[in-house]
């Protein structure tokens, strides 16, 4: 378990970077992990040159999902929308550097899903908008 819950993961979990909401977000996407009820909302502020000026995430999650979101949001700042769309799951898993079982994979990838949803300008699932924080 020490292998799994490494120091940097716990650090990100306890003090997540870019945590909170972004009042002037240009893109926003809310997603849930139906298996556990965890939720994440990803806020992006995209500038004129199509670059990420700012990013935030909010919601509740486990160490894996929060650390994953924290690291991911750090990375995307300054990236273009296209670069952002190109981030793949393997990259996110490399960020964490641990072997995940299928159930935990969903935790690790929730932030990526929300980021992509936001980047592609997807709408929330029908009816979820009202309830996303």
């Amino acid at each position, binding site marked *: 378990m020490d292998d799994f819950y490494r120091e940097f993961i716990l650090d990100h979990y306890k003090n997540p970077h870019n945590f909170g909401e972004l009042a002037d977000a240009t893109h926003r996407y809310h997603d*849930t992990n*139906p*298996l*556990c*009820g965890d939720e994440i909302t990803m806020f992006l502020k995209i500038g004129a040159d199509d670059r990420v000026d700012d990013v935030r995430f909010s919601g509740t999650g486990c160490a894996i999902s929060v650390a994953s979101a924290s690291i991911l949001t750090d990375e995307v700042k300054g990236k273009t929308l296209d670069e952002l769309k190109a981030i793949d799951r393997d990259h996110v898993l490399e960020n964490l550097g641990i072997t995940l*079982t*299928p*159930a*935990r994979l969903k935790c690790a990838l929730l932030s990526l899903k929300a980021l992509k949803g936001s980047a592609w300008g997807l709408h929330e*699932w*029908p*009816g*979820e908008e009202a*309830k996303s924080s």
Partner: protein
Amino acid sequence: MAVTAPQKTATPLDVERLRADFPILSRTVHGKALVYLDNAATSQKPRQVIDAMSAVYLEHNANIHRGVYEFSERTTALFEGAREKVATLINAPQTREVIFCRNATEGLNLIMHTWGREHIGAGDVIVTTVLEHHSNFVPWQQLAQQVGATLVVVDIDDDGRLRRDQFTAAMAKRPKLVALTHTSNGLGTITPAKALTAEAHAAGALVVIDGAQSVPHAAVDVRDLDCDFLAFSGHKMLAPPGSGVVWGRAAILEQMRPFLYGGDMISRVAVDLTTWNELPWKFEAGTSAYVDAIGLGAAVDYLQAVGMDKIHEHERALVGYALPKLLAVPGLTVFGPKTLEDRVGVISFDVAGIHPHDVAQIFDSEGICVRAGHHCNQPLMTRLGTAATTRASFYLYNTFAEIDALVGAIDTAKKLFKV
């Protein structure tokens, strides 16, 4: 190919070796060796399937999907792995199109209760056939009656083959839905499902295929058939009762509302609003019969290892041997196709002067299991002008010797009844 003299065509299967996998086949009934010829009702299970299920209980049983612990992850992986195996078996474009249910009956009713109720209304036409099992007949009949739609029933010719002319005529009514069996459990007829599907699509209908008797016995390919839904039952293909499948095109399934509501099929539940999980789980409410599904996965492995084409060929060899023998018995009538063309190893017959119940009971005393009755085919029985038939149905483990036993038992019955 006309059937003339009984011939033991070479079978591609090493049947004796296969039989060794089925412990039940070495049992006796009333002191006689078991001759199991009721495979259209349900199949026997190889040790591989029985063991795969016991292994779950003995080694890592846990509820699936939501558990963050090793046993749950292992069981979930086997369950979802079974889904992939089924998808491969029927060549489904996507694994998430495979929905586990109890049996073909539930699968067909799922379509009726969701797509059916949403799209069929007053004045609409549903086309089905007189060959259907009640499970692909009564749901559509009831839906039609409840919403004021019309049910058109395509007839067969006197050889038990579907009346293509009537089918074509029915298409002119521009039905919304065609519910068609791939293989008749009453007569063994194979319908030209691919051609009929193309015709139905041209007329603007969706096509539901009842594969309960085809998927276990031959290679069935949903991409080739190009149908919209396919339902079948695991218990007829070496898997346990409780493992059934309904396959549908993702694009259609995604538009459909759920069937059963509850655990696992939701995305989020609030007091005033609920959103649904993704395919296939949207249609799998509550705890799935996951061990049965895992058993189905093991059964698919077994069938694939033997080879669906070889199984089909073996059964054709059995029919090629049995048909002429039966047709030669005085007073015996075979219902359905009398040639090997478009037919599988299901033979329904009548012995003049002996009711099927009595035939079956006398057979049982000889260790032979066959079915006597209407086979959930009452519209077909009415069409044939009888209430019941005796039905022998074959599978990969049946032998030429068992057909000899069957024919011998008919003789015994006739002697007893002095007919």
